[in-house]
């Protein structure tokens, strides 16, 4: 079987949701969209723009060479604090393993967003109390810095408790 023709349960679920949504819309009932991952129901019947506002999961719509959408589940794996104070949810498709960005929306579940953002902090790959010692061992010296890009990272380390800008 061609692997591009395989479908995940999410895609089936999504198709069913679309179908029931359009059927219901014809009958004048719009309250039928359910998130295939967490069951969140849309009050207005609008489909979520890019991801479910409750669990932040999306459906991977990218098409392959044959024009068949992936249909995998896009799991939120990280938060990108992009320039100009816009946050992007970093998602990874559990089916094809591709990653993509999905802009954070006003109605997104804040607890979920904060939980994803703090996951790396609660599972550091080295003992945090030895971070300075380790940094010395890896031999970082400020005179090596030649680019402004590096400076802004450094800036965040030194200023992480204060509000910058």
């Amino acid at each position, binding site marked *: 079987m061609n692997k591009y023709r395989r479908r995940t349960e999410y895609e089936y679920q999504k198709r069913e949701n679309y179908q029931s949504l359009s059927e219901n819309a014809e009958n004048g009932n719009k309250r039928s969209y359910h998130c295939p991952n967490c069951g969140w129901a849309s009050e207005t019947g609008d489909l979520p723009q890019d991801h479910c506002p409750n669990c932040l999961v999306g459906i991977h719509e990218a098409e392959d060479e044959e024009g068949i959408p992936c249909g995998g589940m896009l799991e939120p794996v990280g938060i990108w604090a992009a320039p100009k104070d816009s946050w992007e949810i970093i998602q990874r498709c559990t089916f094809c393993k591709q990653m993509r960005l999905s802009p954070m929306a006003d109605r997104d579940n804040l607890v979920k967003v904060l939980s994803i953002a703090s996951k790396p902090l609660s599972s550091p*790959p080295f003992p945090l109390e030895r971070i300075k010692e380790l940094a010395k061992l890896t031999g970082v010296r400020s005179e090596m810095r030649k680019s402004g890009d590096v400076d802004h990272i450094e800036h965040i380390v030194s200023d992480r408790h204060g509000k910058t800008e």
Partner: protein
Amino acid sequence: MMNREHKRRKYKKRYFQTNPCTDSFTCKICGWPVAFAGAGTNHRNHCPNCLYSIHLDNTPGDRESKCHGRMEPIGVWVRKNGEWAIIHRCTLCGKLSPNRTAADDNPARLMALALRPFGSNVITQADVKVLVNSMEE
């Protein structure tokens, strides 16, 4: 004169998918001299000092990409086994790719990456207060 291994590297497709990349190089972004030894992995794909990478691969190790844009570290993905992966984003074409951290990656820079969301004003203390109050009701 080219030796046999050099030829293989130059002409064999996807050489680095099956062979370790043992080159030492100078980071194009921060000028850090990057030695092959110390990474604890055979596929060093980012600078241990500034954590930037260059967009060379379409799939890991194939060296098939013509983009060659600089790849900015934008976040950390904690995998199921607790291992960290740096998420890189190409500043030219926007491609995202996760890369395993290496043993000699600068720990302060790694933590700075993880802390970045908390240093921005997108979710303020006031927002969190409103959230807490709404949940205590």
